[in-house]
C-alpha cells in the first residue's frame, strides 16, 4: 500500500489527515500542481497509487514547510513529498529528463566527492543533455555575467574519508533490501 510505504520512509501518517485543506491553501506552488497537497493525501488514503505517482505535486513541492507549519493534525506534507519522490525514483519515474540528470549527477557527486561539485556539475549537466539549446544560449548569456563577477562554478575539494560515505550508502541500500524481504 502506498500509504504504508510513504509512512515508512517519512515517518508521517497520511491517514491522520481529516481533509481541512489548510495545506493546499498555504502552498505557494499549488497553483501549478495537478492536485493540491490535501487531495494528494486523500488519494494516498484511498490507495490510488497510479494517480499519486503520475501527479506532478510532489515534484513541484519546494519544501517550504508551510503546510507542515499549519497542519492541525501535525502531518508534514513536505516529508510526504520527499517520500513520494523516493518511491517514484525507485520505480524510475521522473517528471522530466532534466530532473533525472540533475539527480543522478548529484548522487554521483555525493559518492565520488562527498560534496556537490558545481564546476564539474555544469560540464556534466550540459554534456548529458540536461539543457536544451535555447535555455543553454540564455544560460550562457547569464553565465557570462556571472563570470564577469567572478562567480564561476568552482571545483570543490573531495572529502578525505570518502569510504565512510560509501559505507553509509551501502548500509542504507542493504537495509532497504532487507525491508523488502
Amino acid at each position, binding site marked *: 500500500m502506498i500509504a504504508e510505504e510513504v509512512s515508512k520512509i517519512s515517518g508521517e501518517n497520511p491517514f491522520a489527515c*481529516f*481533509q*481541512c*485543506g*489548510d495545506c*493546499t*491553501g*498555504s502552498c505557494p506552488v*499549488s*497553483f501549478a500542481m495537478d492536485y*493540491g497537497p*490535501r*487531495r494528494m493525501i486523500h488519494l494516498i488514503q484511498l490507495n490510488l497509487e497510479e494517480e499519486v505517482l503520475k501527479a506532478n505535486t510532489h515534484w513541484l513541492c519546494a519544501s517550504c514547510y508551510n503546510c507542515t507549519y*499549519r497542519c*492541525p*493534525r*501535525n502531518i508534514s506534507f513536505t516529508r510526504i513529498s520527499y517520500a513520494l519522490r523516493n518511491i517514484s525514483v525507485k520505480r524510475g519515474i521522473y517528471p522530466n529528463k532534466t530532473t533525472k540528470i540533475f539527480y543522478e549527477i548529484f548522487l554521483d557527486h555525493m559518492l565520488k566527492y562527498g560534496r556537490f561539485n558545481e564546476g564539474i556539475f555544469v560540464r556534466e549537466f550540459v554534456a548529458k543533455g540536461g539543457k536544451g539549446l535555447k535555455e543553454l544560449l540564455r544560460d550562457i548569456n547569464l553565465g557570462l555575467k556571472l563570470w564577469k563577477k567572478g562567480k564561476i562554478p568552482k571545483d570543490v575539494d573531495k572529502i578525505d574519508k570518502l569510504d565512510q560515505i560509501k559505507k553509509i550508502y551501502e548500509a542504507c541500500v542493504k537495509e532497504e533490501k532487507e525491508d523488502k524481504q
Partner: protein
Amino acid sequence: MIGVLICECNGAITLDLKSIADSLRREVGDVEVKIKNAVCIDGFEEFKDYEKLVIAACSPQWHERTFKNFAKKHGIKNIYIVNIREHIAYVHKDGAKKAKAQIKAMISKARAGENGLKKEKPKELKSVLIVGSGIAGLTAALELEKLGFKCYIVEKEGEIGGILKDVPIVYPFNKSGEEIIREIKSKLKNTEIITNAEVFSVSGSVGNFDISVMRKIEDLVEVKSIKAGAVVLATGIEEFKPHDMVEYGYGTYKNVITQLELAKMLKEGKVDADTIVMQLCVGSRDEKFFSYCSKRCCIYSIDHAIMLKEMGKDVYIVYMDIRTTWKSEEELFRKARELGVKFIRGKIVDILEENGKLSLTLEDTLEQKVKTLNADMVVLSSALKARETNTILAQLFDVETDSYGFFKKFYPKIRVVETRRRGIYLAGAASEPKSVKEAILEAKAVAKKIATELKASFERARASVNEDMCIGCEICYKLCPHRAITMYSAGETSKAKVSEESCKACGTCVANCPTGAVQLPGFSTKEMLAYIEEIMKADIEPKIATFVCYECAYAALDAAGMSRERYPENYLIIPVPCLGRVGLLDVFKAFESGASGVLLVGCLENGCHYGRGNKNAEMIVELTKAILEGIGLEKDRIDIIKVVNADYKKFVEKANGFIEKIKELPKLEVKV
C-alpha cells in the same frame, strides 16, 4: 469453630464433593463441614450464630448479597465465599484437588482474620461549597437547596454568571445568558454567593470539609472559613485567545475577532460590517493547541450567523465538519442553510488587511480551488479551554486534571460527576466543554449524588495504621489512590493516618508498607500470608499463584467459566480487592511456599477501579523480575495480564500459554 458449607448447585458443581468434605474434616481441625443443595434458595440456618462461615459455591458476583442477607438473618458475623463453580468445576476437567486447596486456604484466612466491618459515622453537615457561579454552579445550588442543603458559591470574578453572561441568545432557551442567570439567582434562598473570592486552603474529608476562602473587598482581604459536607467544582470554561495563530492576525487586525467578542457586539445590537466570515475549529481539533473538539462552537456560530443574516448581513461559515447533533441543533443548521448562510468546507490559511478590508485565502475542498474571499470582519470560533485556575484548585482539593487542565472524571462512562476523591464533585464544563443543557443535567446529577452520599452510612472495612509501628516513610501516603492517607507530625518523625471516609479499601497501602503498620481487615498481612501458605500446599504441580483483582479480572474469570472455556487447574486463585494489594511480600511468600510461577490478573490500562492499582502492580512485577534475576532465578516466573469481562478469551489464552513457559523452567527448590 468455623463452619464450612459446600453447595451442590443442583449437581452443576461436578466435583466429588463428598470426598472433599471428608478430607476437610480429616485434615482440618475445628471445622463443621456440610454439603447442601441450592444454598442461594434455602439459606443456611444450620450454622446459626456461627462466628465465621466459609461457603463454597458459585461466584460471589451472583449471590454474595443473597448470602449476606441470609447471614444477617441467621446471626452469622462473617462469611467467606469460595468460587468452586465458575473458577473450578466449569473450567477444569478434574478440579477436586484445587477445590480442596481453595477451601482450605479460605479456612486458614478465616481463622487468621477478625471482624473488620465498621459502620461509618453519620454525616451531619448539610452544607455544600460550590466553586464557580456559572450555569452549572447556580443550578447545583438551586437543586441542593430544594433537597435541604445550605450552599456557598465562591466566585473569582466580581460578577456571577461565568462565560454565559455574555451570550446574547442561549441555545436552546431563546433567552439571553444574563436573563437565565438572573432567573436562577432569584430562586436561590439559602445560598450565600461570595464574589471576588478564591479558595485558598482545604482540609478534612467527605462530610466534614474545612475550607478557607479569601475575599477581596477593594484593597482589603477578608478570610472566611466554611464548613461543608461536599464540594462541587463548577469552574466552567473560557475562550482561547488565538494570538499565537498569527496567520489570522488576531490582535493585530481590529476586525478579526472571536465568537465571544461577536456575542458582546450582538448583545449591544451593533455589528459594523456587511460581509462576515466565520472560521470554525480555531485552536480546537488542532494538535498544536487543543486536540479535542470544543463541541459548542458549531452551534453558537450558527446561532450568531442566523442573527447576522436576519440583520441583513452576508455570512460565510468556513468549516471542516458541522457538528450539530440531535434534533433542534440539526434544525438550526438547516435553517441557516435555508436562510442563505454560505458554508465553505475548508480552512482559512491567511488573512491580510488592506484599507480596512480583509482578504482571506483558503482552499474550498469541495470545489478543489484555492480561493480568495473578501470580508469586513472575520470571526474566529476559538477553542473553549479549561480555566487556568483549575490546576491550583486541583492541588488544593487533591483531585486530578488532564493534560488540557480539565478536571478528570472518575470514570468517563458512568461516573462523570465524581472525582477520585469522595465528596468532591464536578459539574458543567469543568471536566469537558459542554452545552448548557448538559451542564444543567450534570448539576442536577451532582445534587442527587451529594444527597445520597451525605445520607449514606456504609458498613465496611477500612485500613488503619498502628501508630507504634509506623516509621513515617510516606510510601502509603504517596501511593494511596484516593488520598485517604495524611501525614501528621508526632515528635521527631511523622506518622500516617487513614481518613475513614476517604478510604475505599483497595489495600495498596497494606501491600507496600515496609513495617506492616497499616492493615486492612479481610486483607491484612496475616490473613493473606495464611491464605497463600495454605493454598500452596495443594497437590498440583507446577503451582501458579494467581492474584486476581476482585473487579474486572474476577469477572473475566467468571465469564470464562460461564462459557466453559478450559484452562489448566494449576492456577491457584488468590483473590485481592485490587491488584494494588499485591506486594513483594505476597509474591515472594508464594514462591517460598512452593509456587513455580506468579500471575497477576487485573483491570485494563486506565481501567483500574481504584485509580492506579494495576500500575502499582506493574511496579511490583518489575521489582520482582529484578530481584529474581538478582538471586539467579528466571525473571519469566512472574507476569501480569489486564482483562475485562468481554475479553475473557485473552485470559484463557494467556493461562494456556503461561503454563507452558513455567513448565519449561526448572522446579523451584526452596530450602527451609
